[in-house]
């Protein structure tokens, strides 16, 4: 019986690991432009986040792995509070109602990072996104350092550690951007 339980746990673990995509280091390159209106009506410009590490996530409400990873993004944001880190989640061409209905379902982990609207897929094309979700980690200098196609448990040690390694050392008197 114990062996069966162990085997079942191992199978679950392997399945869970197989389901998560790996955040891969890429040759650093300048992030494309990203200027979009948020669900809150504000305009977000990635350049205004210089000095912070930014997780740029492309997603859609109809994409199951996007739904699955979103709470872990919120937990990552909470882990990184008071650190120079931000999340910009770009929704692909959906209506505000669809997005609001979707976000309302996250009662246990309310999502409070900016949701950006890309109604014509301009950002998606500029960033060359071919799979949902796709995420890029942009360093404090505006360079893409990591990328991943597929869902990630963002608060797991490996992805969060990689992001943490990019955080600039705190400087006396330095702000944390917008």
């Amino acid at each position, binding site marked *: 019986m114990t062996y069966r339980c162990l085997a079942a746990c191992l199978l679950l673990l392997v399945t869970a690991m197989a389901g998560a995509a790996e955040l891969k280091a*890429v040759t650093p*390159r300048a992030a494309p432009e990203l200027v979009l209106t948020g669900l809150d009506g504000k305009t977000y410009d990635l350049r205004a986040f210089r000095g912070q590490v930014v997780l740029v996530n492309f997603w*859609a409400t*109809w994409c*199951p792995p996007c739904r699955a990873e979103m709470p872990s993004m919120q937990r990552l944001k909470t882990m990184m509070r008071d650190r120079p880190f931000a999340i910009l989640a770009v929704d*692909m*061409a959906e209506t505000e109602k669809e997005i609001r209905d979707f976000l309302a379902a996250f009662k246990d982990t309310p999502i409070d990072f900016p949701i950006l609207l890309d109604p014509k*897929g301009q950002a*998606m*094309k500029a*960033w*060359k*996104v*071919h*799979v*949902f979700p*796709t*995420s*890029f980690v942009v360093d404090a200098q505006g360079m*893409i350092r990591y*990328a*991943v*196609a597929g869902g990630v448990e963002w608060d797991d040690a490996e992805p969060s550690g990689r992001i943490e390694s990019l955080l600039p050392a705190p400087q006396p008197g330095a702000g944390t951007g917008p």
Partner: protein
Amino acid sequence: MKAWWVLCLMLLLGGPARAQEPLPAAAGEDIPLTRHAAPGRTLILWLPSEHGVMPQEQAAARRLAARGYETWVADLYGARFLPAVPSSMDTLPAEDVYTLLAAAFRHKPRVWLLTAGRGARLALEGARLWSERHGRQRPIAGAILLYPNLYAAQPEPGQDPVYLPITRHTRLRIHILQGDRSPWYWTLDSLRGELAQGGSRVSVQVLPGIRDRFHFREDATPAERALGERLPALIIQALHTTS
């Protein structure tokens, strides 16, 4: 007129004739083939996607035949004793499609290829083999591709997609059915450009609010289920659009 009477008789008798019989392939194995017979001059050869032959596709094929379009559903995985997974898909030989096309043309003068997803690779490579050997005498009427995946490999984030060489070595009438709730919707222009380089004439029908695999996905939305029910009508519409 004669075809009309045959169709009426078939409907009265409970639907079109359906026969499951293997087709001997060049390599010696038999290709499991379900033939949904119908009168008329058109035959649709339905090739599997990376998900295999789905029951919903057999049902759609049956309904196509009921509307007068003979449809053959070929289980090319079964012919090779392979599991229906993406890695098997890319090993399926185009020669088997050629064999199916040869049998189809013996049966009807107008033959269409139909497939989904990664099955597009198989359809185009099979069409090319046919075209090289018999293209002038008996051209394939066209190919209907549902959410085709013709990437050479899954493109890396931030990189341009690279398409399989067959994409730009195909000269065929192609009709693409693509839902706009798919990342592939956003690369339709580049895919069209690649296909056009080989001389293909490409038409596209965008399916609003629809995801890929809409006709058989377990988490289908009501809109996807409704469109899945209309798949035979969509295919018939595509035949007429592309003709």
